[in-house]
């Protein structure tokens, strides 16, 4: 008989419980009903902050195993469990329907603790726990300038970073004498405080929050500290700890822990044998856990028990690693040295802003815990060594700071490398050798390691290397190099042709992968027309015909309209050309006009007219700068604070024709209303009262991403210098077909490293990058004008070299809504089909 399992709460742990349960209940002995209060299916709460820098809910999606479409699971979202009647084994819900259970699992998580100070519930006060909270914060941030975060713990600092990203001046109030008092010791806390303040946050430690003051509009105006200081606050986020959501259990007469939480034993069962609790709402032997990994372990325990196993939850050592505003912080094990006789080994370097503490047993041999601030490179290895003898002296383990000290080899086989999924080093190395894995993605797929908080990923890379796996980064069978390496080779050797490059540094004759890559590199370094004798054969069809190929082999034509600004005369020319050549006409998202359905032989005729009217190639076909979109700007818009149209035109004219690893899109908005959607672009510029903010690494497409702030309040010159450097650095170092977002994501050190190189010139190449861009600007020439001036190039735009007057008979159109569209492709054109012969006769 099928029994009913009811799960209350569809958060991270509830979700993990259900997927793990379904993966093991093959005989479908249980039907599962999940009641979830939030409107959204479970998402990655650990990654919640990234929701604000533009990653949508889709990017926070949790792996759902085979859950989608599983008929044994009934997921009811937006439904709150209101009470439990244990006598009748019924859960009453906000939907009014009673839900009967044979077993009940509580996974209700926790709620943020809001200190009951006067004004804590004013409009403008928020919590930081759910996607809905973040939507509310984002909505309120538009009008706000000053933000205050109450609580300087892990979540408080995340919240502060989020407010800063939303453009607020942000201050943090922490009751304890240093930041993150739960995770790091005093020395670490002070180092952290200095690093965080260097990055523009104001920190008040040792101060309590007295009250939140309202302004005349009834919204928050300021936070008053217990020492009387008033801190301006248009927006307040409370992040002063969490409280287990144990109210259902309490009301049902189940015992709770001393400090809250549904009291359960080491099997995660309450005193009612049919009721279990997992995740943050559970107090296992009285202790609650505010991290996801122990919650997952509890979920696995209950799954096993319900299916007849004998698993127990043995507790967990707290371990935390995070990177905030580019500051690494990690803490694990007995970070506060509370073990009797524990010895501390501390290295602090005020100049570089790093602090490291190892906590050792009284014989100085066993690692009990540690704190790392400023550089947590050694964290994955150290955490794996927790509770084990140190493989080297503490000095060797700690120096050189930067993780170079200990390699993955030092970790014993049975040590846990991924604590989120409880995967040992041995599990990983076995998977690598058994399945012949060659990359981190494969290890993640096979073992789940690295798919939780991600902090163990560097270790996985180390283990791959330890198993002798060299990551395969070769471009194709013709070049063993990456695109970036080829770029450097071409730059260093001054080679100007593909044939020379493949002869000296590659093998074979090239292919459709390496040829366009080299063409793009040569376009930037060697110059010359992209359809010159040497380069034409390297180009993808779009670049070879300077137009975008469409499904029936015709092309579309996109003239450049810088910044989207166009005169009526030019608009009329486009209309006339479209009409005369019978082209389908569409306005694009990048503020220009796309003309579809041009036959190869029509392209030079069309462009003759466009070039004569003053148009240039829009490079819609190239891996190159596409458009710089702009809003209406100060001339006309009553809100604008910066002349977005003039800046967009200036940028588009500067970077037009710039060949890159992938297309580049840009936008300029005249104020924070962001009408140009600049933050969805590879680089986006937004006017501020003091100049321009520059954002980088955004894109639309398959996985949309918002661009992140690179530098703020720049004047025109500084802005252009930074964009020059950013784009040139991208062109030099990105992989083939890697958009800026992926490039930054893959960069060691990410955005912080990029900022160091581009803004602070940490590699000392800024001048060189700017000079390279100047060269590009100086050498720019319109590609289409270049074709039209050269009869030999024009001659390649033919339907048939031996019958140039015969149009391609396979191209047919039908009409829809008054315009052409490609004819039906189902019945292919009847063509004479010769027999396939083994070898063609050759000359």
């Amino acid at each position, binding site marked *: 008989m099928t029994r009913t399992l009811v799960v209350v709460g569809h958060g991270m742990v509830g979700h993990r419980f259900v997927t793990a349960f379904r993966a093991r209940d093959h005989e479908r002995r249980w039907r599962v009903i999940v009641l979830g209060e939030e409107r959204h299916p479970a998402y990655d709460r650990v990654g919640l902050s990234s929701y604000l820098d533009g990653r949508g809910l889709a990017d926070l999606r949790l792996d759902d195993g085979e859950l989608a479409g599983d008929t044994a699971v009934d997921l009811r979202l937006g439904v709150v469990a209101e009470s439990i009647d244990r006598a009748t084994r019924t859960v009453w819900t906000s939907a009014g329907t009673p839900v009967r259970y044979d077993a009940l699992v509580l996974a209700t998580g926790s709620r943020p603790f809001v200190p009951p100070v006067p004004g804590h519930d004013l409009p403008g006060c928020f919590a930081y726990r759910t996607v809905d909270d973040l939507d509310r914060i984002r909505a309120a941030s538009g009008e706000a300038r000053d933000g205050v975060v109450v609580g300087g713990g892990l979540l408080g600092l995340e919240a502060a970073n989020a407010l800063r990203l939303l453009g607020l001046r942000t201050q943090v109030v922490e009751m304890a004498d240093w930041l993150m008092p739960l995770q790091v010791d005093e020395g670490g806390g002070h180092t952290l405080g200095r690093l965080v303040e260097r990055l523009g946050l104001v920190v008040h430690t040792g101060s309590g929050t007295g009250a939140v003051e309202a302004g005349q509009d009834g919204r928050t105006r300021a936070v008053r500290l217990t020492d009387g200081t008033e801190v301006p606050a248009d927006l307040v986020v409370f992040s002063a700890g969490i409280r287990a959501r144990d109210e259902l259990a309490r009301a049902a007469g189940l015992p709770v822990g001393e400090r809250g939480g549904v009291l359960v034993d080491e099997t995660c069962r309450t005193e009612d044998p049919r009721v279990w609790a997992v995740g943050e709402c559970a107090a296992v032997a009285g202790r609650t856990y505010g991290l996801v990994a122990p919650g997952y372990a509890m979920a696995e325990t209950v799954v096993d028990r319900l299916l007849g196993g004998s698993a127990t939850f043995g507790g967990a050592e707290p371990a935390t690693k995070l990177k905030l505003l580019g500051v690494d912080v990690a803490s694990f094990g007995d970070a506060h040295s509370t073990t009797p006789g524990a010895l501390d080994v501390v290295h602090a370097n005020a100049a570089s802003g790093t602090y490291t503490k190892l906590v050792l047993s009284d014989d100085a041999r066993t690692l009990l815990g540690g704190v790392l601030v400023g550089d947590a490179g050694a964290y994955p290895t150290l955490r794996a060594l927790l509770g084990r003898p140190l493989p080297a002296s503490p000095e060797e383990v700690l120096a050189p700071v930067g993780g170079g000290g200990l390699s993955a080899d030092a970790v014993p086989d049975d040590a846990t490398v991924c604590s989120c999924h409880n995967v040992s080093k041995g599990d990983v190395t076995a998977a690598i050798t058994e399945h012949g894995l060659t990359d981190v993605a494969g290890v993640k797929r096979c073992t789940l390691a690295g798919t939780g908080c991600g902090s163990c990923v560097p270790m996985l890379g180390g283990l791959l290397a330890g198993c002798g796996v060299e990551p395969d980064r070769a471009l194709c*069978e*013709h070049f063993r190099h990456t695109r970036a390496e080829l770029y450097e080779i071409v730059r260093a050797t001054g080679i100007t042709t593909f*044939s020379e490059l493949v002869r000296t540094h590659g093998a*074979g*004759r*090239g*292919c*459709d992968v*390496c*040829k*366009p890559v080299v063409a793009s590199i040569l376009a930037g370094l060697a110059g010359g027309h992209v359809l010159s*004798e040497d380069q*034409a*054969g*390297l*180009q*993808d*069809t779009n670049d*070879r*015909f300077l137009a975008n*190929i469409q*499904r*029936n*082999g015709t092309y579309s034509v996109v003239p450049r309209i810088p910044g989207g600004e166009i005169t009526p005369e030019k608009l009329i020319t486009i209309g006339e050309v479209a009409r005369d050549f019978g082209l389908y006409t569409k306005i694009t998202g990048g503020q220009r006009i796309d003309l579809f359905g041009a036959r190869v032989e029509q392209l030079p005729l069309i462009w003759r007219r466009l070039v004569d009217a003053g148009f240039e190639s829009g490079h819609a076909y190239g891996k190159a700068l596409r458009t710089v979109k702009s809003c209406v700007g100060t001339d006309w818009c009553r809100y604008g604070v910066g002349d977005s149209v003039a800046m967009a035109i200036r940028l588009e004219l500067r970077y037009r024709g710039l060949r890159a690893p992938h297309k580049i899109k840009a936008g300029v908005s005249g104020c924070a209303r962001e009408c140009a959607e600049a933050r969805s672009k590879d680089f986006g510029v937004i006017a501020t009262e003091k100049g321009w903010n520059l954002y980088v690494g955004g894109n639309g497409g398959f996985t949309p991403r918002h661009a992140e702030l690179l530098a703020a309040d720049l004047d025109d010159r500084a802005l252009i210098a930074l964009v020059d450097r950013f784009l040139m650095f991208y062109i030099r170092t990105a992989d083939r077909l890697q958009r800026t977002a992926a490039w930054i994501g893959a960069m060691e050190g990410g955005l912080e490293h990029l900022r160091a190189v581009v803004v602070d010139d940490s590699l000392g190449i800024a001048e060189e990058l700017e000079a390279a861009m100047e060269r590009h600007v100086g050498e720019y020439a319109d590609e289409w004008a270049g074709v039209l001036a050269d009869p030999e190039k024009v001659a*390649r735009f*033919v*339907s*048939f*070299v*031996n*019958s140039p007057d*015969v149009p*391609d*008979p*396979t*191209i047919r159109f039908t009409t829809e809504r008054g315009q052409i569209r490609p004819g039906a*492709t189902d019945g*292919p*054109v009847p*063509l*004479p*089909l*010769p*027999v*396939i*012969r*083994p*070898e*063609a*006769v*050759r*000359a």
Partner: protein
Amino acid sequence: MRWREVCRWEALRPELGAPVLVDGHLIALFRTEDGELYALGNVDPVSSASVMSRGIVGDRAGEPVVASPMHKQVFSLRSGRCLDVTHPELALPTYAVRRQGDVVEIGLP
């Protein structure tokens, strides 16, 4: 075999395919870097568009190939067969082709 003159040898640039029309046959003509000539059907079997002459020419493990500019399937210039493991059933027709002094000729049965 009837031989038809289609273009001058010099008009054919190395590694740049050229579309020709011979007795209703749509043919892509290639001259590789090493001076070999190849002729295949110009119609891409996946998209039904007449575009193969616009593909990039190169090699796969030494076999001369052209990649469809539409969906990137790779075809042998010698046999016309698709070399992608996912599409072994695809093939382009091949034609006889030769150089006669200054001109290039296609042969039809």
